[in-house]
């Protein structure tokens, strides 16, 4: 029976598919897409095997997860130093939730891509890259030690680089890929420093051993706090939190299924997953670390929500909503609630993938993605419109879609553990979210088409693309119900998600009506407001924009973050490089090196006048030398 001990197969199968596709992909029929999909399906099936095995174990007392690992690199030395790197895989409830999202969404996206990417000249390479990404992502989820985690972390970053830059002949795509990789890498510097700092005291990279070490008080509080904040920097980069969020909207240059997979459901939540996985360290560290997470998350939520209001690109709006969701998850983690964050992550994986894939269908059908070119598509693409609306409502947090339950859970824990300012801002963000999600639905599917010609040809996509949409829509409707203990028990879980994924103890489901009512009111207000502002000629929206012109401008310019970064890069980083290169050429080389060589040349130039070229002079010199030598010799002898 395949169980948790064989969890390593889950990343291994897509990895093998990647290698095969890379080597012989172009000789396979259909350029090997079936191989990638088959591998992913196998991983999905294996996920169920692992899940069933886990459910058998999870009820037992003291269950903390199962590790299976092989030695990778190790050296034992006579001096007693031991250095060991293992390829280890660890399965617990947290990992399983993540596996569910990753395997399912990846499978859906791959199936969808067979339609979406059908005519691309690099079709085979696309599937190879997606397989590579999936393997890295699954390894990240299952890693039991920091080293493998870091390797997989960089691996998903690289996969994202490849896929954002998939259409690299577009300058903007190449630039976006570069920006994404470098921005996340800035966070990764912190991650690596954090990992090494943790290792330095504990002497191990194993995550659970480091937990034990930390809980036994092995680290001083200040040291641990520094280390976890460095780790959090990695999460900030990967999960597009303020101030490193700038890469995610640009990453929309990639193919839309890629956006659905990487920049919505899987990779970007890796940061959230990392923080959730390392929550025991944050608990031991100074509370200021948690406060920083909350603050960063909240800033991200507010900035992205407001920017979502004015974005004009269909995919960018959804990208901002993703950043918004990620911020919410961070706030949940900052409030020490792993189960709330993971619930949101679980739900978000489905409805955000749904939104992106539906948007992909729109783009596929119309070849347009500017909101001003779209509109009125509900008539042409009813199925797409319906599933998009389901996703948008879920994002807005309308009962009884998954988004509602997840968001409610977060609001619950924030209300319990944070002060009212945080709570107030979150409520406000619920309103804004509903507002811009309504806006994007109206501008895309309702009203009059902006570009009639594109509108003429639009129609619902082929079944291979629609089927994943319907499956995801179904999950968007249903996934939220896992909060109920009854539902969980019926499925064989110990209870609802709070009983399954938790930090310190199982949390039974509770449902404070006041929060639910308040959030629903906010969301509905957002919906109504959206219809008021943007239906028809969208006259109120235009007037609002003119009324708050400075604010509108700031939002349009994305809080000037990109400009600041660009300025910094151009004026500080590249300038420093230029100055240093100039310094190297002119000071170090031309002055220091050539200068000292020049001294030699100068001395030689001076000396050369001693050389007359006339033989008698040389002869005289020889004789003089002999005489001097003779004098010396005689003087010494005497």
């Amino acid at each position, binding site marked *: 029976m395949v169980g948790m001990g064989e969890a390593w197969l889950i990343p291994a199968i897509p990895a093998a598919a990647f290698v095969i596709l890379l080597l012989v992909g172009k000789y396979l029929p259909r350029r090997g897409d079936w191989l990638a999909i088959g591998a992913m399906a196998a991983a999905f099936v294996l996920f169920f095997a692992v899940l069933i095995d886990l459910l058998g174990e999870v009820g037992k007392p003291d269950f903390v997860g199962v590790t299976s690992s092989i030695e990778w690199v190790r050296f034992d030395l006579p001096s007693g130093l031991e250095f060991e790197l293992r390829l280890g895989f660890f399965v617990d409830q947290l990992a399983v939730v993540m596996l569910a999202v990753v395997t399912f969404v990846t499978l859906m996206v791959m199936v969808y891509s067979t339609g979406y990417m059908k005519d691309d000249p690099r079709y085979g390479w696309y599937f190879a890259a997606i397989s590579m990404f999936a393997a890295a992502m699954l390894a990240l989820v299952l890693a039991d030690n920091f080293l493998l985690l870091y390797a997989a972390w960089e691996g998903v970053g690289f996969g994202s680089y490849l896929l954002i830059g998939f259409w690299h002949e577009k300058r903007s795509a190449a630039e976006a890929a570069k920006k994404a990789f470098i921005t996340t890498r800035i966070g990764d510097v912190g991650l690596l420093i954090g990992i090494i700092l943790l290792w330095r005291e504990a002497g191990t990279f194993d995550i659970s051993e480091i937990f034990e070490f930390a809980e036994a008080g092995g680290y001083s509080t200040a040291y641990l706090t520094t280390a976890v904040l460095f780790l959090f920097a990695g999460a900030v980069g990967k999960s597009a939190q303020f101030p490193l969020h700038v890469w995610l909207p640009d990453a929309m240059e990639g193919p839309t299924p890629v956006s659905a997979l990487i920049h919505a459901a899987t990779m970007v939540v890796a940061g959230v997953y990392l923080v959730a996985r390392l929550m025991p360290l944050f608990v031991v560290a100074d509370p200021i670390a948690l406060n920083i997470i909350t603050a960063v998350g909240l800033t991200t939520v507010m900035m992205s929500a407001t920017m979502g209001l004015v974005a004009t690109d269909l995919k960018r709006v959804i990208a901002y909503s993703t950043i918004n969701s990620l911020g919410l998850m961070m706030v949940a983690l900052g409030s020490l609630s792993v189960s709330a964050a993971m619930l949101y992550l679980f739900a978000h994986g489905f409805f955000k993938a749904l939104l992106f894939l539906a948007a992909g269908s729109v783009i596929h059908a119309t070849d347009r993605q500017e909101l001003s070119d779209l509109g009125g598509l509900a008539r042409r693409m009813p199925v797409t419109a319906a599933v998009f609306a389901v996703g948008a409502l879920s994002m807005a947090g309308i009962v009884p879609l998954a988004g509602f339950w997840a968001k409610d859970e977060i609001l619950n824990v924030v209300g319990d553990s944070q002060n009212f300012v945080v709570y107030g801002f979150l409520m406000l963000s619920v309103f804004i979210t509903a507002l811009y999600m309504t806006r994007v639905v109206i501008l895309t599917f309702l009203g009059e088409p902006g570009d009639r010609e594109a509108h003429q040809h639009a129609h619902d996509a082929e079944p291979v693309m629609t089927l994943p949409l319907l499956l995801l829509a179904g999950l968007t409707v249903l996934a939220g119900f896992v909060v109920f203990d009854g539902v969980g028990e019926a499925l064989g879980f110990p209870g609802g998600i709070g009983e399954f994924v938790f930090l310190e103890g199982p949390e039974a489901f509770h449902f404070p009506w006041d929060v639910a009512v308040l959030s629903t009111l906010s969301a509905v207000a957002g919906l109504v407001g959206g219809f008021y502002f943007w239906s028809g000629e969208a006259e109120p929206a235009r007037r609002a924009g003119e009324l708050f012109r400075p604010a509108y401008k700031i939002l349009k310019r994305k809080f000037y973050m990109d400009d600041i970064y660009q300025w910094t890069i151009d004026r500080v980083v590249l300038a420093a490089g230029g100055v240093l290169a100039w310094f190297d050429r002119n000071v170090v080389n031309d002055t220091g090196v050539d200068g000292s060589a020049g001294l030699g040349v100068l001395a030689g130039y001076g000396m050369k006048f001693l050389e007359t070229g006339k033989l*008698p*002079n040389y002869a*005289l010199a020889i*004789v*003089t030398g*002999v*005489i001097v030598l*003779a*004098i010396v010799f*005689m003087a010494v002898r005497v």
Partner: protein
Amino acid sequence: MSYEEVIFYFVAAVTVLGALGVVLTRNVVHSALFLILALLAVAGVFILLSAEFLAIVQILIYGGAVTILILFVMMLTRVRDMPQALDGPQRPFAALAAGAFLVLSVLAALSSDWPGETREITVVPFREMGEALFRDWAVPFEVASLVLLVALIGAIVLARGEEGE
């Protein structure tokens, strides 16, 4: 003063005079003639040193071949037609250096403590020297002959001139 000494001083004086003539005279041909004089006088010194064979060789090779060669070259290079002074600008320094060297050398000769009998010449048998030359020194002798041969060819090549000249 024994007659040997008289002869020695006479021969030495001729040698020095000849040598001075070589380096001081204003006429190059005279200079060559003085050289012959000096070389002959040196042959006399060799006889005083009871090295008669060497004296003969000296006269044959130097007095004959070398000097003739020098005269020929003088003719070929038209040295006499050269208007410039024969001496270079560094003549005073040359005199100084030569003087200093002379002083040092004489000092060294006189102050050295020579081993063995310094008053008596032992006559070296002609025959033994010949045997030594062709037995013990056969290889250097052959090498020297080779050097002569090479020099001969080299001189021909150098002096022959370009094709068609």
